[in-house]
């Protein structure tokens, strides 16, 4: 299949792995930002092909994983409201809040629908004028444009029954939070190719310069990931700290200006709590006041205000350390015992992009 097979070619993969081995002269630690890259690495066993002194650390780039318990609780509460249809991408349904997950709410009678596109939710609102359609809008910069477009269309169509519970997060502030932490050990990044397809990579140039770290915009197939690693390692060995683009078939420096414009029209940056990590300034998106009628936290303010202070993470879940690259999933004492996909303590064990889920599914242990 075109655009897939050539990026999974065994000979090319082997040659890239050899190139990395030849280049690395001392220990380096690299973080792949995106959960999609983490899954590719573990699914294809790419880390097995790397030299022992090159450490890959899995980053926070799984939007499902970083959505705080409090927002999942809000989604479950709204789903349980009479007359509400709660729409979500499938990934989100198994993620535990403090009061269970959305699958549980569905089993108890809530109308929870898996959608494939924000336009599906818009159509649901149009054909169900007497129901309130609430969308759990989760994602990084990649999925923000279609949600923003859905809000613009809802306004144009005059839909009074469509709103978003926004849990959108932004990558660069999270990378800066990791780099500015005293515990940081990351020396180079694979930036997330799909996020950069929308946003470009100008923002990353300032980060690379300020923190002296190489950043390579990287795709998701085995050849992409290994080439990205080779480019980061090349920079590290040469003492460079620049932004380079491996994912040229999808990403340009300026990104998709039209998509950025519609995001700016509807959303604005806001402070955001990241699950297990804490609050990061200007790391999330919220709906601008001009579109407040489509903000579920405004529309259902009275409903959500009935509940007490936000719930905390499960005390045993170490997802914060995992998401910051400070702990490998199999090294968590609960991994595979008290925390499994059937009974997860935290989101990374159930999200399709979660690091814990990747190790559980493809490895069961860290040893390979």
């Amino acid at each position, binding site marked *: *299949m075109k655009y*897939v097979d050539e990026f*999974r070619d*065994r000979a090319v*993969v*082997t040659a890239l792995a050899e190139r990395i081995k030849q280049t690395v002269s001392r220990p380096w630690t690299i973080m792949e930002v995106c959960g*999609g890259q983490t899954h590719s690495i*573990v*699914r*294809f*066993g*790419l880390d*097995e*092909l790397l030299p022992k002194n090159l450490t890959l650390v899995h980053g926070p780039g799984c*939007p*499902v994983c970083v959505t705080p318990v409090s927002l999942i609780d809000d989604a479950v509460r709204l789903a349980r409201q009479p007359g509400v249809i709660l729409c979500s*991408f*499938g*990934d*989100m*349904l*198994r993620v535990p809040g403090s009061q269970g997950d959305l699958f549980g709410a569905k089993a108890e009678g809530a109308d929870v629908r*898996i959608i*494939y596109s924000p336009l599906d939710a818009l159509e649901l609102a149009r054909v169900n004028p007497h129901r309130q359609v609430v969308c759990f809008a*989760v*994602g*990084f910069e*990649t*999925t923000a444009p279609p949600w923003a477009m859905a809000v613009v269309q809802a306004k144009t169509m005059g839909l009074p029954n469509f709103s978003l519970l926004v849990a959108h997060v932004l990558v660069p502030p999270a990378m800066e939070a990791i780099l500015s932490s005293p515990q940081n050990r990351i020396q180079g990044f694979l930036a997330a190719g*799909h996020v950069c397809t929308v946003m470009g990579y100008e923002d990353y140039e300032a980060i690379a310069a300020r923190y002296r770290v190489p950043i390579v915009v990287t795709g998701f197939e*085995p050849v992409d990931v290994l080439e990205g690693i080779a480019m980061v390692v090349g920079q590290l060995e040469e003492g460079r700290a620049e932004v380079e683009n491996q994912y040229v078939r999808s990403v340009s420096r300026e990104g998709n200006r039209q998509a950025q414009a519609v995001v700016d029209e509807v959303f604005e940056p806001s402070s955001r709590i990241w699950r297990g990590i804490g609050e990061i300034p200007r790391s999330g998106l919220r709906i601008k006041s001009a579109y407040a009628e489509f903000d579920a936290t405004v529309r259902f303010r009275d409903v959500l205000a009935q509940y007490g202070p936000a719930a905390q993470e499960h005390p045993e879940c170490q997802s914060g350390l995992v998401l910051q690259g400070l702990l490998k999933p199999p090294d968590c004492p609960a991994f595979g015992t008290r925390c*499994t*996909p*059937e009974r997860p303590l935290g989101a990374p064990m*159930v999200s*399709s*992009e979660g690091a814990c889920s990747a190790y*559980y*599914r*493809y*490895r*069961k242990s860290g040893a390979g």
Partner: protein
Amino acid sequence: MNDTSFEPSCPLPAIEKKTVQLAHGGGGRLMRDLIQEVFVHAFDNPLLSLLHDGATWPVEKGTLAFTTDSYVVRPLFFPGGDIGRLAVYGTVNDLAMCGAKPLYLSAGFILEEGLSLDVLRQVVTSMAEAARAAGVSIITGDTKVVDRGKGDGIFINTAGIGVVPPGVCLSPQMVQPGDAILISGDVGSHGVAVLSVREGLAFAGEVQSDSAPLHGVVEDLIVSGVEIHCLRDLTRGGLASALNEIAEAAGVGIVIDEMAIPVLDPVRGACELLGLDPLYVANEGRFVAMVPASQIEPALAVMRRHAVSGKAALIGSVSDRCSPPVILRTVVGTNRILDLLSGEQLPRIC
């Protein structure tokens, strides 16, 4: 059933009803008419026509195989099949995997009030065609009607009986280290075909379900004298789940080569876009065969003679018991486990 000369007044003859009503399951005239005009008419065979509480037939010496399965699918019709075909082929295939020649099926229907009778006729006609294609007779059945909103149109249960030829013994316990693992064709088409119509995924529109009866190729393998240790059809949970079940039941390990597993391009494309793994996607007309290494070529030759298994391929081998039991050699040459999934695969966010 003895008719009396007394005819109570009846608002409309059943034939003029357009939808299933609760009375169709009530045991009265409407139900009798439904059974006669829809089921007996379509399934037409001497054992069913007796309309007794059960069907009876003489048995010969030998081994019987008996299986049952229930069918729920939304939508009822999808590219390459429908719930009626699934209900026949699914049970026929379960019998075939025991090495049995399928003979008779039962059919239990749970119908939702309000279901179009035309839809029911289409499904029943499709079952009748599938039964003819599979050489089985549907000889007994049952109908219930549930309130509107308490069902999903039609639920069907079929049970099947078949006869296993003397000397044939297929089971996971026969599987041994060194056995080869053959697959009868490409995987994932059924699941993607159903998903494409259920969710309106235009990009997967050309994919057809692989729904098909497998008894013919199995019978040919047996008659041709190919030594087979175990057969397993791939249904829910896909190839990955079937291999895990066999490895566990047989107490062996399995090593599979990802490159060797056939997957059609539109299926791969749809799975890539949705974040699904075709090895876990449902099939309805595919099976794996565990055979001694010496039987690889003869088995593949027989399988490739049949349209349902024309793309049969060698995909792996059985090893000594290991944990986890199934290892996948990836396309890039590394190894990883191929585990059972915790639940259904869910489409990803981006």
